[in-house]
């Protein structure tokens, strides 16, 4: 493999030396990180720490999707943003902050909300996608797009004192295909009838931050596994984190790919061709929000 035989600069050896000592990464893994790209959708409480550690680790290209601007109420948990960034587009503030730490990375800003019109175009070509969004609609949209394009999706969410992490479209770290791995729609065939938002129900910063960091870690593992497949096994499926529980972390066995799935089942109705016509707004119509 030509790419894996490439050389690292002295600066790269100095900067990344500590993580390259970890045998699950190593020099080959570091070169894979450099030649890979990760799309982070949502630059909020999950996206900020994920971006900070993906940039730190030396991912070659980081795409950031977010339409929102920074506000004071974001600062406790959206830890890339300083007071002087209030009012700026999050994608611009995030890239400026990341560049201060690592300017060797290629950063790409997508300053809009992802809709089905441009989702295929934006997502296509990335090696891993992180779902750091906060609505069911964006979660189903990203689930379908990544499954259609065969890209591993690391989906996280958080509320109050809890967070959930889900690795989709891959059952094995070193795999290049989904195998029997579920897509988002396999795990959640029906949209929720009630939904809480962080703005209504609240969130603790370190809880959502932990989930974002674990997303970055899973992305690094999926990329580095190709350099050392013998050291990597199955992806964790689903992880539940409840910081108030006396067993705060649980690894969950999720369902496998469903033959009835509209996106990856035996007779899929959501395909690359029909994707644009699917009405996510209607599908995710939430009758009422969950009163706190």
């Amino acid at each position, binding site marked *: 493999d030509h790419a894996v035989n490439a050389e690292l600069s002295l600066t790269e050896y100095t900067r990344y030396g500590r993580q390259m000592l970890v045998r699950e990464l190593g020099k080959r893994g570091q070169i894979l990180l450099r030649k890979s790209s990760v799309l982070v959708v949502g630059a909020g409480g999950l996206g900020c720490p994920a971006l900070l550690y993906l940039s730190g680790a030396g991912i070659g290209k980081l795409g950031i999707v977010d339409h929102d601007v920074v506000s004071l109420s974001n600062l406790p948990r959206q830890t890339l943003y300083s007071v002087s960034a209030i009012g700026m587009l999050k994608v611009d503030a995030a890239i400026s902050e990341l560049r201060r730490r690592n300017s060797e990375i290629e950063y790409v800003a997508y300053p809009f909300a992802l809709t089905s019109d441009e989702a295929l175009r934006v997502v296509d070509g990335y090696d891993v996608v992180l779902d750091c969004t906060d609505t069911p609609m964006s979660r189903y949209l990203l689930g379908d797009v990544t499954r259609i394009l065969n890209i591993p999706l690391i989906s996280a969410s*958080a509320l*109050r004192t*809890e967070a*959930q992490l889900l690795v989709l479209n891959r059952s094995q770290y070193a795999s290049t295909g989904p195998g029997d791995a579920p897509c988002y729609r396999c795990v959640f065939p*029906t949209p*929720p009838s009630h939904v809480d938002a962080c703005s209504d129900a609240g969130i603790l910063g370190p809880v959502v931050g932990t989930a974002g960091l674990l997303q970055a870690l899973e992305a690094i593992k999926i990329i580095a596994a190709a350099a050392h497949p013998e050291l990597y096994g199955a992806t964790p499926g689903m992880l539940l984190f409840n910081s108030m529980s006396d067993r705060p972390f*649980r690894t969950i066995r*999720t369902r496998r790919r469903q033959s009835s799935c509209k996106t990856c089942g035996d007779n899929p109705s959501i395909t690359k061709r029909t994707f644009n016509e699917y009405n996510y707004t209607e599908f995710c119509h939430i009758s009422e929000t969950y009163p706190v």
Partner: protein
Amino acid sequence: MTVPLTVEFSGGLEILFGGERTLNITLRPSDKQASSTIADLVKYLCDERMTDKRKELFVIEEYHVRPGILVLINDADWELEGEEEYVIQSGDQILFASTLHGG
């Protein structure tokens, strides 16, 4: 035959059950049955243990767990175990977790 089990709530569902995150329960099958299923447990929780009147936040159409709630039987998605028809075993841990969407 009575069956002792642990029921846990998360993702905000605990608010519907008096704020309790964990219930230790002993199920008694009704007269016609030799055992209790998840369906029986859900009905029992609705009728006997729910302190909030808004049953639609837990079940739809009389005792079917509403979409958006994960049911985990001993840390496995209930789909792997037979969903509502799963026969509860002594010592089982059943977790009802609202799926989260915040970020």
